[in-house]
């Protein structure tokens, strides 16, 4: 475990595990609601927020967070419009966020190195203050997921039934999108375990094999998906 003696690697490991713990259960709904590219859209909007912060010499994390939350407050409203397909809306957010980030960076006084960091980020550069902000943010997200589990379930599964029961579908949808930033319970547990394991193994593997960390984690997840797909296919046969 010599990698944990390197200070920045401890931060990396903690940040990765926090992301996996906070977001893995939400990812179950993201898949079930068929809005998987919402994650890419979130990343672009948040990139635009960081670019905006750099342009005006502000702290990037809060600006990105506020811009992302405001955008997804609007998104949850527009998502209720039956005439506007969700994929189209997510596509527009992705393209709009990406364009905004590039345009803002073009006017930024800082150089190309910043541009790459803004667009792709780097899990290895997580500083301690940011780690504390992540603890708070993902703690809030995890608490919302636990407390609002039944609301998230029914508004995703049967919104008409939810309305008939007097549950405020628009409100909970808004909270869901903002929080994005074997039952079903088994799926939540499994998603969280897989997320944490892939993150830890990915960070350790990237350290020992001298590979880029983010792609290593995603690569492990892709391999796990392939294996689980094959396993399910074998069981069906």
């Amino acid at each position, binding site marked *: 475990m010599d990698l944990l003696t390197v200070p920045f690697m401890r931060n990396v490991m903690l940040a990765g595990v926090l992301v996996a713990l906070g977001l893995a259960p939400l990812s179950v709904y993201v898949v079930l609601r068929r809005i998987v590219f919402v994650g890419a859209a979130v990343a672009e909007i948040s990139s635009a927020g960081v670019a905006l912060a750099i342009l005006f010499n502000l702290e990037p994390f809060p600006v990105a967070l506020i811009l992302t939350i405001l955008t997804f407050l609007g998104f949850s409203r527009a998502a209720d419009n039956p005439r506007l397909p969700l994929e189209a809306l997510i596509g527009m957010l992705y393209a709009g966020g990406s364009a905004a980030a590039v345009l803002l960076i073009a006017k930024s006084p800082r150089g190309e190195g910043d541009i790459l960091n803004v667009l792709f980020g780097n899990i290895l550069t997580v500083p301690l203050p940011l780690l504390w902000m992540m603890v708070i943010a993902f703690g809030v997200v995890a608490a919302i997921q636990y407390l609002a589990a039944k609301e998230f379930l*029914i508004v995703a*599964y049967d919104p008409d039934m939810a309305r*008939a029961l007097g549950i405020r579908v628009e409100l909970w949808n808004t909270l869901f999108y903002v929080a994005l930033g074997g039952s079903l319970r088994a799926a939540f547990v499994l998603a969280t375990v897989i997320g944490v394991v892939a993150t830890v193994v990915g960070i350790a593997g990237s350290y020992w094999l001298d590979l880029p960390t983010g792609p290593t984690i995603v690569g492990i997840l892709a391999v796990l998906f392939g294996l689980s797909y094959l396993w399910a296919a074998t069981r069906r046969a």
Partner: protein
Amino acid sequence: MPAELLRARGVALGYGGRTVLRNLDFTIERGDFLGVMGPNGSGKTTLLRAMLGLIKPLAGTMEWVAQNGGPPRIGYVPQRERLDPNFPLSALEVAVMGRFGKLGAMRRAGRADVEIALGCLTRVGMDRHAHSPYRSLSGGQQQRVLIARALAGEPDALLLDEPTNGMDIEAERAIMELLLDLQQTNATTILFVTHLLSAIQNFARRVALITRDGSLLIGPKGEILAPQSLARAYTEEI
């Protein structure tokens, strides 16, 4: 005289400025067993959605009549096909959803709620399948689970959208007999929407027929299924 449960006066319903149903004046009584029929696209589901409060009338008023100081509790059974089969839910997890309206915001279902949902699954003959994946059940079994879900909310009335759609005659009969039993044993008001004449003819006590001009004929089965009434809804002779 039976007590009123739902009262509609001068109601017009539609979407996006287009009126589908107009001049609706009717009453549903407690303990009723009412079948709503009409041609495809005539507005059957629109009427049901208005009753559930999912759409607002373009004109007029539609109101559930309070009794014992509170509004009646309504159980909704949607069309099975509308629910996403990819959700990895067990039959019991689906049935427990019927309790969600009784819990406050951000309160999780407890043991008592699970017991009630299990009781409802037993009531519809699905207790043996409580832990089976909902998506692995047959159409008739899924329908029973959805009825159990609605019953878990302890409703005064059940509103069902095409409850026997896609079923063979035997499964249709089993579901309709279950509804009849609920109405007779628990005095639950049953209102079901269907395009299947057989379900109406064999089981409904009263019938609401949506005509071609968007009005509603409502009355005893014998009266509404008479050829002169049916001719106002269907171009083909039935």
